[in-house]
């Protein structure tokens, strides 16, 4: 089943979500984090997710990156139906296809910068030496070559963030999800990193989903999706959608969008 899906990858978007829901807790304390998300991200597209705190951005990219199960709806990523995968298959899927930049960097404190970056390669079973060498090359790209042997607690917030970005890139994943990747960076460094990520997307047809509040990097997006209260309320090119201004491209009401369950 998975193989046949792969063959259709040419016309299918990298991410294809229809009516995705997810809630936390139960009874009185129940929170609807996602109230029916419809979202497509094309191969080679850089999609940004914006919206107020608590609107469900992190929850959405967690579902798309296969680290959180949706309650309902359909979510196909890189041709695979996540709803039908077992946990072990999801783990293998992440190992092969997904790169992560977490909101709070999440470097392993006992490992040096280069060792942290090498982790995705080691998880894939690569040998330590070549993995380290590859890690140092990516650290060079993010401008941290000379700090490769530093421990995380010896790095500034911005440097840690760059190590986290290098870790997301090192194994050349097909889809990279980032939660606030430039929040701790100054304007210039943030710009440089976005340029790097942009070029990676352009060159290799990979897809990138970036959650951000940082209006200064909106220009790097192909499209921006604006979320509010578990729904996508606007989606379009950066100049059309902006967190500060009303959505230029209104999307249909969520109830209506649910009917669009016609996958692929």
């Amino acid at each position: 089943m998975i193989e046949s899906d792969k063959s259709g990858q040419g016309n299918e978007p990298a991410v294809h979500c229809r009516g995705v829901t997810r809630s936390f807790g139960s009874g009185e304390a129940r929170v609807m984090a996602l109230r029916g998300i419809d979202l497509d991200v094309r191969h080679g597209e850089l999609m940004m997710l914006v919206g107020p705190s608590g609107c469900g951005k992190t929850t959405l990219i967690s579902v798309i990156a296969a680290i959180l199960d949706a309650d309902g709806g359909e979510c196909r990523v890189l041709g695979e139906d996540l709803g039908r995968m077992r946990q072990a298959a999801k783990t293998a899927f992440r190992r092969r296809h997904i790169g992560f930049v977490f909101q709070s960097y999440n470097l392993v404190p006992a490992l040096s910068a280069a060792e942290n970056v090498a982790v995705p390669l080691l998880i894939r079973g690569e040998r330590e030496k070549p993995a380290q060498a590859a890690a140092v090359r990516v650290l060079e790209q993010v401008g941290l070559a000379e700090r490769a042997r530093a421990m995380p607690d010896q790095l500034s917030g911005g440097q840690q963030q760059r190590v986290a970005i290098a870790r997301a890139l090192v194994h050349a994943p097909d889809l990279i999800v980032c939660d606030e990747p430039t929040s701790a960076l100054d304007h210039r460094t943030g710009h440089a990193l976005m340029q790097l990520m942009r070029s990676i997307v352009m060159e290799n047809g990979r897809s990138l989903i970036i959650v951000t509040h940082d209006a200064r990097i909106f220009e790097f997006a192909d499209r921006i999706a604006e979320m509010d209260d578990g729904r996508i309320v606007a989606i379009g090119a950066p100049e059309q959608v902006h967190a500060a201004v009303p959505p230029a491209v209104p999307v249909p009401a969520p109830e209506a969008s649910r009917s669009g369950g016609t996958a692929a």
Partner: protein
Amino acid sequence: MLSIALKMLTGNRGKYFAIVSSLAFTSFVMTQQPATFMGIMARTYSFLTDTGRVDLWVMDPKVQFVDDIKPMQDTKLYAVRGVEGVEWAVPLYKGSIRARLDNGTFQNCVLVGLDDASLIGGPARMVEGQLADLRRSESIIVDIDGATNRLARTVNGERVPLAVGDVVELNDHRATVVGLSQASASFQSLPIVYTTYSRAKAFVPAERKLLSFILVKLRPGEDAHAVAQRIRATTGLAAYTWDEFRNLTLHYFLKNTGILINFGLSITLAFLIGAAIAGQTFYAFTLENLRHFGVLKALGAGNWTLAWMVLLQAVVAGGTGYGLGASAVALFSNFVIGANFRFLLIWQIPAAVLAMVLLVCVTTALLSIRRVVRLEPAVVFKS
């Protein structure tokens, strides 16, 4: 991945030290307590330890332990010599005698009488002089602890150890010290005086029967148990190998004193406390690392990989802690404990402790692994 596990374990020096030192403490207590116990138990058969090995010890069948002397008729010696498979058999006297100290007080001593011709059953370790010196008239050999402590004499207000050449009065008989022997620690710490069988007879004439033990050497190729059977059948006496006689003694003390229960309790308690501390420290360590395991999981590390990592961490921490604890025991027994409080470290004790420590580590690791396996990788996106 396993090298990542090791770096996670040792990366936080403080935590690693806490885990390892609690495991080291557990290993130390769990080794030291049974060794002390064994040391105490060894005192019960110190006389056997100090007597050179022979194939069989023959005695009255009612004897329950080494110091439980039930004298036999001298004729039994000839009966034993007549049993098939016996190469030779010699008498051994073991009793007590009073030594008169120069200040007029008396000191009870253990008196051992050895076969006049062969001197078999003499002290295994000599400090000064030779066993053969017992052939000289009026001669005795005294153990060095007795000579330096209880039998020491007072000269010009100072205590001077009994030395070779000194004369002692034993039950109104003159005796000359011709040698000093090394004795193992015993419970009563009475001085031990060796002499010949016939001289012992002269020292304690009031006793009618003097034959405490018969020491037997087997003919080459004879089976000790078969000969023991024959001795019992023909003479009605009990015959034990060295090990059997020691075990008989041990069993008597284990059965008739509370020592086993007391030590068993304290060892169990030490184990439980140590296991609880070590287990909790390691478990807390895993919980603190749960977030990092979550990161590895999100990045695609499978449950098996993570489980092996946790297990490796536990076993390495356990091994290191055990190593330190065992070394501490070795140092402790060599330098801190004096000759009067030696403990006995048979190999089974450290082996059992290692097994226990690993059991604790693996059990804790399994609990930790359960947490890691159940972990939702989505935690990594929470700040």
